[in-house]
């Protein structure tokens, strides 16, 4: 029952986290669609522009941007529930801005349609019309579509009217439409209801939304497709995870193997000089940032600068093409020593210091005195009585180590050129590869939560008094 409760809470946490990550990714500035379209402007020409527009819509659809962002929205009543359908993003943002000023969507929508009408009319102008004038009109309409400032809208409309009237080949088709657009915008200004920007409104979008689409992809077998190289996200993550797990497994193992005896040794002889000095040394280590230590180690011990290049330096992928698994592992492990050291020492220092103090605390307890008084062997006293009780805080620490290690491996992987999960997520964020970022963060979160879950379960096993909401009495 306890386990089930814990599991439920973990899943809940993951779910909330998924929404936070998703929310942050939608807040990233810039238009993600543009990354997939040519930087070069397409040559003017109605058919080509229409093609470019369709291409934009298609790309947006492959990114799920044609869906509403979430199950529901709570925003001021001035905003319509269909704004997400307006593309491209620059147009939507312009309208969004206008709504913020005037708060009267019905009129702004009329204005939006009027601009679209202008666009279509321009596309349908006969080839015999004056090309230069057509280009100029196209330019002005394109600026009109993204104008979010009433002043600019009015000036552009005026310029457009001048252009339209001046040339007889386009005036008959264009002039009435420009007048109509001007009228539409004048109406927007006349019927402003800015107060509607302060009335909250709840809108339900249903299940066909972008968040659900994302989650669906994440939970599907391939976990989505990377935007950068079209590889399945699952493959990218599993390649990287091998490295990160290897690093962290080594590191975690070392922390336990070295940290427990060290902490015990320091804990059982509180007054002695040597343990005190070791403790001080550990404090010193703990205070040194791994990024700096890593650079120093690399420069001193992995380059011939000081003649001490005893260790392999950064990972240069020196595995022969047809290497056996054994050769691969050998090559990898040679490169692991320095990064594992950098990843391990801060946690080792922290861990053994904690164990030292909880050991010291346990050694002063009455049951330890009593055990000694019964004439028990000192070894039995330390291991059976004191250590068992000093172990509890360690179990909690064990759970906390997982996220610490993952955080540390981002830096270590970058410096040592190890293609692990940390470097992958970092790269994906920089290059806005959201499917990989999203899945990577969720995976790390899941591993972290598993770590906590495990320590909870262990705690529960070690001390049956522990129940949800029931603190162990001290």
């Amino acid at each position, binding site marked *: 029952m306890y386990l089930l409760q814990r599991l439920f809470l973990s899943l809940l946490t993951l779910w909330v986290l998924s929404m936070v990550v998703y929310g942050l990714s939608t807040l990233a500035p810039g238009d993600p669609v543009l990354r997939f379209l040519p930087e070069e402007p397409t040559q003017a020409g109605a058919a080509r522009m229409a093609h470019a527009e369709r291409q934009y819509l298609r790309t947006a659809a492959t990114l799920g941007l044609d869906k509403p962002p979430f199950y529901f929205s709570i925003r001021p009543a001035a905003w319509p529930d269909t704004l997400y359908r307006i593309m491209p993003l620059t147009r939507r943002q312009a309208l969004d801005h206008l709504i913020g000023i005037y708060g009267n969507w019905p009129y702004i929508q009329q204005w939006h349609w009027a601009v679209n009408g202008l666009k279509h009319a321009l596309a349908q102008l006969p080839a015999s019309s004056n090309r230069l004038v057509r280009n100029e009109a196209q330019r002005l309409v394109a600026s009109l579509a993204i104008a979010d400032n009433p002043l600019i809208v009015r000036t552009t409309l005026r310029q457009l009217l001048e252009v339209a009237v001046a040339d007889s080949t386009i005036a008959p088709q264009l002039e009435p439409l420009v007048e109509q657009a001007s009228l539409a915008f004048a109406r927007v200004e006349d019927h402003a209801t800015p107060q509607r920007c302060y009335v909250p409104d709840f809108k339900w979008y249903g299940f066909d939304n972008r968040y659900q689409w994302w989650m669906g992809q994440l939970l599907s077998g391939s976990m989505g497709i990377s935007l950068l190289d079209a590889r399945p996200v699952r493959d990218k993550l599993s390649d990287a995870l091998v490295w990160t797990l290897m690093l962290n497994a080594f590191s975690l193992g070392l922390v336990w193997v070295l940290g427990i005896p060290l902490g015990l040794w320091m804990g059982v002889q509180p007054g002695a000089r040597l343990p005190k000095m070791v403790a001080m040394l550990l404090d010193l280590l703990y205070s040194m940032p791994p990024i700096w230590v890593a650079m120093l180690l690399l420069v001193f011990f992995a380059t*011939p600068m000081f003649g001490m290049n005893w260790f392999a330096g950064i990972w*240069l992928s020196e595995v022969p093409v047809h290497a056996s698994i054994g050769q691969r592992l050998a090559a990898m492990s040679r490169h692991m020593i320095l990064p594992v050291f950098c990843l391990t020492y801060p946690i080792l220092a922290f861990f053994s210091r904690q164990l030292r103090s909880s050991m010291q605390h346990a050694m002063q307890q009455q049951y330890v005195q009593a055990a000694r008084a019964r004439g028990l062997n000192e070894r039995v006293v330390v291991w059976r009585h004191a250590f068992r009780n000093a172990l509890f805080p360690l179990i909690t620490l064990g759970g906390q180590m997982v996220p610490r290690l993952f955080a540390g491996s981002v830096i270590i992987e970058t410096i040592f050129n190890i*293609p692990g999960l940390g470097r992958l997520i970092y790269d994906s964020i920089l290059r806005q590869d959201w499917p990989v970022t999203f899945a990577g963060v969720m995976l790390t979160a899941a591993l972290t939560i598993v770590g906590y879950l495990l320590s909870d379960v262990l705690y529960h096993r070690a001390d049956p008094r522990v129940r949800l909401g029931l603190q162990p009495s001290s």
Partner: protein
Amino acid sequence: MRIPRFLILFFVVGVFSCTDEPTTTPQHGFEVVVRLPADVDKLNPLTYSSAYALQVFELTHQPMMNFNPETLELDPVLIKGRPVSEEILDGPWAGGVAYTFELLDEAVWDNGRPITGYDVDFSLKALFNPHVQAQRLRPYLEMVRQVRVDPANPKRFTILTDRKYILGEAAVSNVTVLPEYVYDPDSLMRAYVLTDLTDPAQMSRWEADTVLMRFAEAFNSVTYARDPRHIVGSGPYRLVEWVSSERLVLEKKTDWWGDALSDRYPMLVARPQRIVFKVIPDASAATLAVRTQGFDVSAQMDVQDFLTLREDPQVAAHYNFFTPPTNIYYFIYLNMQQPKLSDRRVRRALAHLVDVDAIINEAFNGLGIRINGPIHPDKAYYDRSLPFIAYDPERARALLAQAGWTDTNGNGIVDKELGGQRIELELSFIINTGSKFAEELALMVQAQARRGGVAIEVLPQDVSALRQALVQRNFELAAGAFATDPTSYDDLKQLYHSTSDRPDGFNRFGLHNPRLDSLLDQIQVTLEKDKLFALYKELQRIIYEEQPQIFLFIPQERIVIHKRFEAQPTARKPGYYVPHFKLRETVPPVEE
């Protein structure tokens, strides 16, 4: 205690397993190890987007002609000589140009079949299939309308374009030729004709075509972007292995057809037996790898580290250092549509308030080549008579005063009555958050401009937000970089023509100059050299006077190449050309 002994054992094993690492790179055959600053995205010549992909598939695939890294001229690759260009006088493409090519008789695919004009036709049809993700390449070839293959000699073919264009020859002859048998095993594209696919009027029809979709689905897939068996071209190398985010291994094909012709055709020279690309994104990791001789070649070294390494005798004993010009230039956008910047004198004054030499020396360690305009200084038509605009706050103040900007309220910032309001000359300067250089540049410009009475507010923004501000013309000053190709003619219409001042256009300055427009239009269709050069000269003068941007400099590339090789840097991307590397017989003695 038992545990410490285990500990000692662990480290002893670790140390010993490391000491056998060679301190100098052995001469393992003739292999070149190249560092890549990022992994390649897609090894597909039509759908790739990263420059590193281009660097790799240039070794596996070939175009008809390519720029020779030594001469920077277009040299034949798959063809016998430069194409014959003729103006088309009648028919649907009258006024366009026909380029006639003849492929080398020896040129064959890996299956032994000859490379013919039909393969060129297939490659262009694949490019113009609207479902193929080749959006980046299509605009360069918009003038292409038809390929006519000589039925008697399929090695001879003509590409027809519908307009005269200075970059026409370079564009059509730089198309990568793909083997149909690999990329279209079901011959789906045979049912289509290039002329129809390139017809704008039929565009919407092709967009709904399911066969084109089927071809594109396979062509865009990861199979044709990552699987070595499906990344096949006529080039000297084949992809053997690709370990994601780690390395790519290329091996020379045995009995490659081009070897027999390499003494006559410099672009068919391919000396290394193996080329290994290693992915090392972090700049300091790359610096460490130079110290351990972890690779042979790298461009884009960190500026500061590059200078340190160059001075280090231990490193200089093994590497040569080069600083060829890159093919971009840095500048500051001025939004001429903003009332504060619409006066030419104000823009000139701002140029007088940017100390470019100081910026090159302090923010770029002297690794920059100053420019006076958008033309690369290595070009024959670069106008040397236009002097660099000197840093001169006094002159700037005088120009500002002429334009009506003086400091009337004594706060150190010049001001002026504009639209019924007295406003100070305070300008926002948008820079990219990720760039250390942009940050230093902005701070220096801020301090320098202040001496001329201009206040600058620096606004760091994310790349995509910066791009959006430019698209919406929602900026005053912004840091920018444009490509300046040292190889071909410049077509600057997209940058300075008034029709390019649209949301998707690059005239983000809001520059409208009728004379400039007509020059840009003429340049596009002028094929006579003397006339063209005169037009370029006038163009440079107008841009110089208009000052739509403050021109800064061309950054220099930072390249290290191992001394085992005889190799020259080049102004062509990425700054070195691996197939031309020669292994030295003896490693030269260390220079003291």
